[in-house]
């Protein structure tokens, strides 16, 4: 675990760490840092697509439910107006679309992030608390083939970071 004082230092360090051959990296920051996921090579474009698919499902189910109940399930003739009065179905279709996306996206977000998580070794690092306030941490996993306790520590220190080890 290497701590940097500013997000910029962290952003500069990551390409060098990757160039040195380390692959199992993760960064921990108190707030979203632009370009960090790119630097780590972890860009994830799935969220918008998930949202779109959920929206399509929500819209179809919402409209379908109304159309079926009003035309087939329980047709009510009110003043001779058409049963399939689609403009009147727009508000509920819209609300259900958004509701489906919101609920679905929330669940997908947690699932993609492997949350809820009861325990993560990173949180045991003494300095981790600061990574939620004013430190920007880079985390190298020991399973990395390039990992060597002393060499890795020395390497990270040359990048200007405070380093500490985390046990599982």
């Amino acid at each position, binding site marked *: 675990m290497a701590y940097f004082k500013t997000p910029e230092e962290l952003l500069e360090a990551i390409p060098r760490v990757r160039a040195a051959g380390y692959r199992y990296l993760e960064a921990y920051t*108190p707030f979203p840092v632009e*370009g960090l996921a790119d630097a780590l090579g972890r860009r994830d474009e799935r969220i918008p697509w998930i949202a779109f698919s959920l929206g399509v499902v929500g819209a179809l189910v919402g409209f379908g439910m109304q159309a079926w109940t009003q035309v087939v399930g329980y047709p009510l003739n009110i003043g001779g107006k058409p049963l399939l009065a689609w403009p009147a179905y727009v508000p509920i279709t819209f609300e259900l679309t958004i509701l489906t996306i919101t609920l679905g996206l929330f669940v997908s977000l*947690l699932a993609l992030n492997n949350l809820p998580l009861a325990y993560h070794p990173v949180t045991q690092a003494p300095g981790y608390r600061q990574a939620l*306030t004013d430190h920007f941490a880079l985390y190298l996993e020991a399973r990395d083939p390039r990992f060597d306790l002393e060499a890795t520590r020395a390497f990270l220190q040359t990048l200007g970071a405070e380093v500490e080890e985390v046990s599982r």
Partner: protein
Amino acid sequence: MQAKPTGDTTLIQGEHTYQSLADKLVGVVEKPPPRIWWPLVLLGGLGTAFLLYAILVTFLQGLGTWGINIPVAWGFDIVHFVWWIGIGHAGTLISAILVLMRQDWRDSLNRLTEVMTLFAVLCAAIFPLIHMGRPQYFYWLLPYPNSLAMWPQFKSPLAWDVLAIMTYLTISTLFLYLGLIPDLALLRERAKSRLARAFYGALSLGWTGSATHWHRYRAAYVLLAGLATPVVISVHSVVSLDFAYGLVPGWHITVFPPFFAAGAIYSGFAMALTLIIPLRKWYRLEEVITLRHLDWMAKVMLASGLGVAYIYLLELFVAWYSAEPYELRQQAWRFNGPYAPYFWAMMLINVGILQLLWFPRFRHSLPWLFLISVLANVGMWLERYVIVIISLSRDFLPSSAKLFHPTWVDWGLFIGTFGFFVLGIALFIRIFPPIAVAEMLHLLHKLRFHKEESHAARSDGLLQNPRGASGGDSSG
């Protein structure tokens, strides 16, 4: 977006590092509450008890305990339903629309206003439930296969209303919770007792602040903000259709959806100011909720209030232009009927006093701003009174005209929801930080450090350009 000309000192005042800012914001929860907190909780608790008692009386003795009659079948219940829902709008507006517009000043306001939204919508949701007369059958509103083989009538705005309110409640709660997650993780790590650590830890869902998580989180957050935006507008528009679909003179007008939406934003910002002005003083948050924030909120209030005022005049014009005798009679009934004081008070506040906000002198004076925001809440209450009760009290047949006289149960429900509102907010900010810490740290970074870094960047060209850096709050 370029940083505001004086952006680095106006949105967060004082010399702050990340650590001191976080300490200050989390301190609201970690330190003992200001002395005023206890009386507020007591008052809120008493109000909530009163609310429960009034609901109990309603359930045991029926709607006869209310002042409603025929033709005024929608009385205080609907007035307060619409009033509370309107107040709820500022929260989502600030948190969602302003995210999309990348307005940095929202960062210190969004949590508080989202909490306000949550409790205002809960207060609002009480009224339609209890005014059904047989509230135990409320689930008949939902589509589910039942032994009667009946389905809801989806062509009715009342059925839309149910879904719109429930969607809104769900979305605003989830949005609030999503924003809370990083702060809960911070509280978890700072917790001194095992119990607090377990509590915040469970609620934080094990958030670690990993870059990959942040990346997805920002993508989802911005998307949800984009989706919540039309919902804000749709909710009060749907509520307005409950009225506009009816033939009652004074209701049957197509301009109702934007009218209600503008009124909701106006009253929402008014209530937000009413809450924030004392809160920032009690919790010493002047450094993060600056006069500049209040000034901008007052401007939003002015803009939406002007929309409302315009539609008041438009309503009169439409009544005249339609040459519909019942519409004309309804307007005359408002002007000089028994309810005329309500109508003129509404006009005075929402058209007259509103204009004070044009002047910086009033926008920058806390007592004035507080007074105007309270009056705006009163004005919007009067507006709903005018729309719901005055319109209903005289429709088509002179023989069916009847006035509405609220009973103590009506007032009890109203005062009680106030108690619940205050109690809810007081407890919430005791347990959860009322200002989004992670977002404020991010803002501090954008305001202070990017400014310094951007000078350095120009020389060595390592960093992103300052424009992208200062405005890019979507995930990178």
